[in-house]
């Protein structure tokens, strides 16, 4: 098993006809993902490598019944694309795009929640259920089927982590990039809930970073509800306050979002926080060995 996506996931690509959209749609198909439709206003009736393009999400749904959308629509239209998917009732909406205006995102987040749907991102690399399906932009060749769930706020760090795990023959159930923006649809806590409910996930790797309190919230969740074993990593531990570290969300402000709290919060609930990606993999291997 896996979380959120698997071989039955039917993906519609918002912004399929763009440079990013068409490239990554192709990569997804190569991974084995069912890419059933694209949406680009004004390009309805065309095709991209055999995938039909529609003007609106409404049409795409009527004609191809997708159950997941992935958006490459640039920042100015990003939130609107999410809302269009939500209004059409897409249960899993993945927003890859970075630079979504935050007020737009606040509205889109609310719009999706009002409808009881799930948003991942924005500003995220998407997700992969190893051996089953990929939605997003993670490199195809890294993954190996297995029982470690990975959830991360950072793209490249996720790849690095997965590479490290796979090279040690530690496979993954699902790898989920939740995104680096200040408002994201799916939190660490949400991801933990999903992984805890997935029988094929035996251990969870959580890659946090400075900014916000999602890591602390996840630690509190683990303390309150328990969890499968978790191994954590926090990046930006030496970042100065007030500076945005690339990600719009990676910023220590008003005494919040600093790394010490995050590390302490995890350690308090028995979650080890590694210093390097290699150390994460070591810890994971040890715990898995102990667990199995």
């Amino acid at each position, binding site marked *: 098993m896996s979380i959120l996506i698997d071989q039955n996931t039917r993906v519609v690509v918002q912004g399929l006809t763009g440079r990013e959209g068409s490239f990554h749609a192709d990569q997804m198909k190569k991974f084995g993902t069912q890419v059933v439709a694209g949406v680009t206003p004004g390009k309805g009736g065309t095709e991209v490598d055999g995938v039909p393009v529609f003007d609106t999400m409404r049409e795409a749904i009527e004609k191809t019944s997708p159950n997941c959308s992935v958006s490459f629509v640039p920042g100015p239209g990003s939130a609107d694309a999410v809302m269009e998917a939500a209004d059409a009732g897409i249960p899993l909406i993945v927003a890859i795009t970075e630079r979504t205006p935050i*007020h737009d995102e606040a509205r889109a987040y609310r*719009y999706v929640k009002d409808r009881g749907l799930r948003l991942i991102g924005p500003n995220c690399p998407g997700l992969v259920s190893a051996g089953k399906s990929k939605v997003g932009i993670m490199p195809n060749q890294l993954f190996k089927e297995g029982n470690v769930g990975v959830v991360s706020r*950072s793209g490249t760090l996720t790849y690095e982590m997965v590479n490290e795990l796979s090279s040690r023959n530690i496979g993954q159930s699902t790898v989920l990039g939740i995104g680096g923006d200040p408002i994201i649809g799916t939190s660490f806590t949400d991801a933990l809930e999903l992984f805890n409910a997935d029988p094929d996930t035996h251990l969870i790797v959580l890659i946090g970073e400075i900014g916000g309190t999602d890591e602390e919230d996840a630690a509190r969740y683990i303390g309150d509800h328990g969890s499968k074993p978790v191994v954590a990593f926090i990046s930006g531990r030496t970042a100065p306050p007030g500076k945005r570290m690339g990600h719009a969300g990676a910023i220590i402000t008003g005494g919040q979002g600093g790394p010490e709290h995050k590390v302490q919060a995890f350690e308090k609930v028995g979650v080890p926080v590694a210093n390097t*990606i290699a150390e994460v993999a070591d810890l994971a291997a040890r715990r898995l060995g102990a667990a199995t």
Partner: protein
Amino acid sequence: MKLQEYVSKDLLRKAGVPVPHGQVAESVDQVEEIARRLGPVAVKAQVLVGGRGKAGGIKLADTPEDARQVAQQILGMDIKGLTVEKVLVEQQQKIAKEYYAGITLDRARRQFVLMLSSMGGVDIEEVAAEHPDAIIKVPIDPSFGLLAYQIRDAMFRADFDRGAFKGLQGILGGLWRVTQDKDAMLAEVNPLAVTDAGNAIAADAKIDIDDSALFRHPDLAQYEAESINDSVERYAAEHNVPYVKLDGNIGIIANGAGLAMMTMDAVRRLGGQPANFLDVSGGARAEVVRQAIQIVLMDPKVEGIVMNIFGGITRGDEVARGLLEAASTMDIKVPIAIRIAGTREAEGRKLLEDSPFTPEPSLDAAATTIIRQVHEKHAAPVGGQ
């Protein structure tokens, strides 16, 4: 993008929020002329750093001549490493009460929040740390906005002056309008003042605009340059390169924000001092890599560079090509250590084989190499005595 006080106040004024009469000036002549029109004034250094008052960047002047004199002191002065180039000259206010009002993002709730406190005029983060109950927070529904009853309720709870209630309420309404209309991440009035005459006024203001929404605000583009203090950061921002200046001497280049942070952390963990954070982003081409190296080297303190590339969308060979291109077009005087993994790692390594940039086997190895070389350079003259 952080706006200077005078720009923030201008936005508020246009949204109907009363602010002190005033004007920005860049010369003592201008300051004197403005003071002649306004009467007793405050002369306030326009720098984007906290504590300018304590640093002597805000002074009162009762006559135009006084104003000229204090302007002479303030214009050109150094506040925490920043040179004061502009001052805001404002009518002095007789302030009876000071409050705090701010709208900012509450990330945990995924929505904006209005914060009020009767402890105004002081650092709100200190208030938050020492008297958390003194801050009233009101979550703002993104679909309905900040509602009138919410403002009233918060004001009563924060024990705002009932005599100036209407004026204060108007300011808070205006603050939300500006936050929304101008895509602010933060909009703060501190102090939100009530004058001796009982009028509510935004005595100081701080607005931070969401960079991702600047495309909607061409009117604010002119303030982008003055919103960034460091000249290298300014240059990087103009070229859309995520770059943050730090205090050390080891330059950092990585693809991806998380990876760059990790690289920075690794350098520090291994005993080095990062000079910057730089993210060449996913899919970086050779030219982008060359430009990244150029930006890092614009900081004269940089004595070595650690490059950390994990190829996903980014290809190892493209990065190697960029590095070689940089070496051939620039006179690079500092050592560079590179670690390449992932997509086209082999091709990249091959390209660098006969260059001075032999790839290191790991990030820690690359960092250690540069830290050692920088250390040796410092140690060398001593050893040579």
